[in-house]
């Protein structure tokens, strides 16, 4: 099982420290919580490639049953899905297929947070922040691995994009969970209100664009954290955690 190395500064950021550094006592607790998480987490992931097609807004309009709002939005056809979202369409511009993926740290963070909530709430928020960073770091490391192998095969990875970003509906979670069979494959489930459990989990779409050998940098850059996690293309500009 992979050991996930979180970025300490990201944990501080989740805890609300903006430009300051926490004192030694808090940093000791962070170290303790991270070590516990590293020992107890059971990271798992699953990914699958699907071909996709983007129908621009006017083409999507041609569909017989498009409602009013649909008429002005592009539609992404991905396997058996027809996703209406302009932010995702923008993100996937130029891609002919996409990697659908889901990753989770398992049940340990939820249990540790719950347990700490009874004994030391200050530890609970640290577990919460550390685990939030660890699932990001885990996704980044998976991303890096795919980046390496796809680049070799002549593909470029677009920044990963998750349900809830921009105008991409959260209800897409249901389809991702179904297509990847995540309850069985990695133990990731959804509640009726679309909450992922275990809670330290991520689902996302990563567009794959064929590189043009003459114009290698035609796609969005994937080497900065913000691009990788999709902050740059997200419309929730007032988000507390926007980079």
């Amino acid at each position: 099982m992979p050991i996930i190395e979180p970025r300490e500064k990201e944990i501080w950021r989740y805890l609300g420290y903006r430009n300051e550094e926490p004192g030694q006592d808090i940093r000791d607790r962070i170290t303790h919580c991270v070590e516990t998480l590293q020992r107890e987490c059971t990271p798992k992931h699953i990914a699958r490639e699907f071909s996709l097609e983007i129908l621009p807004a006017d083409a999507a309009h041609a569909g017989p049953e498009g409602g009013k709002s649909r008429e002005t939005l592009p539609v992404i056809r991905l396997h058996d899905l027809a996703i209406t979202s302009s932010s995702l369409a923008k993100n996937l511009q130029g891609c002919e297929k996409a990697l659908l993926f889901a990753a989770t740290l398992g049940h340990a963070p939820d249990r540790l947070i719950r347990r700490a909530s009874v004994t030391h709430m200050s530890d609970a928020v640290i577990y919460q922040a550390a685990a939030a960073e660890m699932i990001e770091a885990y996704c980044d490391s998976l991303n890096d691995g795919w980046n390496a192998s796809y680049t070799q095969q002549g593909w470029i990875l677009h920044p990963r994009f998750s349900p809830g970003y921009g105008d991409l509906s959260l209800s897409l979670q249901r389809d991702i969970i179904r297509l990847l069979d995540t309850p069985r494959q990695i133990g990731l489930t959804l509640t009726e209100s679309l909450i992922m459990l275990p809670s330290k989990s991520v689902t996302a779409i990563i567009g794959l664009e064929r590189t043009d050998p003459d114009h290698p940098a035609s796609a969005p850059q994937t080497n900065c954290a913000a691009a990788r996690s999709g902050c740059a293309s997200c419309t929730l500009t007032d988000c507390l955690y926007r980079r």
Partner: protein
Amino acid sequence: MRNRFLDKLGKEWLLFDGGMGSLLQKRGLKTGELPETWNLTHREDIIDIHRSYLEAGSDVIYTNTFGANRFKYPDSLSEIVSGAVSCAAEARKRAGREDDAFVALDIGPCGRLLQPMGDLAFEDAVSLFSEIVAAGTKAGADLIVIETMNDSLETKAAVLAAKENSDLPVVATCVFDEKGKMLTGGTPEVITAMLEGLRVDALGANCSLGPDKMVSVARRFLACSSLPVVIKPNAGIPRVENGETVYDVGPEEFASVMAEIADLGIHAMGGCCGTDPSYIRELKKMLYGTKEGAAPAGHPAPLKAFIPPVPKDLSLVSSFADAVRIGEKTVIIGERINPTGKKRFKEALKSHDMDYILSQGLQQEDAGADILDVNVGLPGIDETAMMKELVPLLQSVTALPLQLDTADPKALEAGMRIYNGKPMVNSVNGRDDVMDAVFPLVRKYGGVVVGLLLDENGIPETAEGRFRIAQKIYQKAASFGIQPKDIVIDCLTMTVSANSRSALTTLECMRKIRHELGGRTILGVSNVSFGLPQRENINAAFLIMAIREGLDCAIINPNSEAMMSAFRSALALTEQDPDFNAYITAYAEEPGSSQSAPKQDAPEASNAGPGAYIERGMETKAAEAALQMLQHADALTIINEELVPAMDRVGAQFEKGTLFLPQLLRSAEAAKKTFEAIKAAMPGSDQAMKGRMILATVEGDIHDIGKNIVRILCENYGYEVLDLGKNVPAETIVETALKEDIKLVGLSALMTTTVTHMEETIRLLREKKPDTKIVVGGAVLTPEYARLIGADHYARDAMSTVRYADEVFG
């Protein structure tokens, strides 16, 4: 047909089938398509697949119902299930194996996580599985297979559904990783304890691992299970090749590793993901030496020796993740979750302060308890409801097995039913009416039951008299099918100051139980010292003597260092602590140095008041300083001049952005601990409360960390908080607000999908209790959004809730 399956199970090799999904995909099933619809639309394909397994040698075929449940088939479940059973039965007919092959109704996980970690209620899961069981039984399945289970609690729900809605045999197999762990923490030992208790007919593992990694899982099952063991591995590790999933272990290699597993002594085998009939054919060859394509009917004598299941004399209790073996070494059962003689605990039960009760459990775990006794019986408390609520809550914060302690069979059943694992049950005694009420529950749900040596005539004076009651308990248990290994005898500790022989009588009785009946024993020791000074001296000495007598379970207060040092020393002296590891771990460090408390800086000024320590989040120092100050100041002065100003200072710094959330919470924890220390030293010195408020996470939302942060701060700033928890229906919030006449309600929601429930709650509150103010918070909310759904105030963080409360109550 049913008896024929049980006639063979555990008596000869049984060959199960292999994967279904990948075969369906080869026939055109698309990714994400619901495979079970094919039971109605592609019957011939399904029949064909079953038939190919039967012809390859499978004795048991699984119906195509893995994902058949009401979530996926709200309107057509029974058709889908009966269609599946009829396909399997038809295949059996066509294969000419009506006499010796069996149709197993296949039940997979429902895809949702059960409470308390998820949102699906346990009884909803039972009822969901019951529908599948009822439909499959009616359609004529021969047995029920519950498989690919990741969660022990969901496994239990499915087994109960099977047992309550059918007489068919039940086989249950779970999924383990390379370390032998389920996703929710269970191990082969944990699962065996629970499933044997629930009286399934066979158990084991399937999916996830290839055969090589399954060897150690199989070995662990065989070491603890008295039941037949089933192993169905995947065809190795999957990888995607040209868009198709392929597995790296071929049929011959698969069979050759399974030969190793067969030699360990398992009783049934098959394959899971990636396997097909060619794998089963190889297994058949491996077991029987038949050539490919040989007639499957009528097994020749096997090549591989078959070893019937071996009964194990193991007394196991378990939780979802830990199994404790009784009889191996003396274990500690923590006695502190019990209101008897504990004012603070009684208060917590009455005010529904679940966190206090949970903290009592965690404190004992940290102190070294192996099992926690849970007793919530108190006049005026609905014990059944409390048991049902507390058991899952405890199991969401601790993996220690629980001992359910109640005299009320209803409360006992409520606890045993929802319990995740195999509990201890406290208790029965020699009275027939008590045994008639409790033994059927132990028979149904499983458990290790405590037998008290008393009956309708009271407690016999002599060891012989008590011994006779023990014999009666064992006999009566046997008549319910409960084995001696699932009974521990309490020889009863009497007050030695009332009868100077009584301690010796108890020890003598223990000796007889152990030597003459081979029984396990349990003892609560603290009664022995009643009426004597320095009771811990006597208790510790008696504990040591009982351990020397072979005591298996000591019910003590693990927070008492005197008892723990006696316990650890006795274990070290009786060869129960190999290499003295436990003793050295406990005492090699300096006394008083605490391992779990956060490291704290040395104080700058040695005579600092509690306020200064609170500001720095140093809880132990703060409480100590407050106690010292109590010698020359009254409680109220300390609270008003030290605690409250300290919290005001950190609150202000937090708002200015010079101090951050973890520090704010550390200070709040220090303040809380100091309040409690003052309260304990000076009973009645409660902080003056500024007001009472409700906090709740709305229905559908199960994130409660934000709400919990708000709670601890509001409490520290002088508010009494009625914490209704998470996933709280609007009606509950409104009812409580009306009943308790609450002026301020705080609601939390994290998801856009659950804000609708927040809006609904606000609407209902406005309608039924218009004078109540409502403050809302949570990740997706903004001031505009809060206004839009009708809240009075949007709180961006916990301090802002406190400030708003000050406004409302000020």
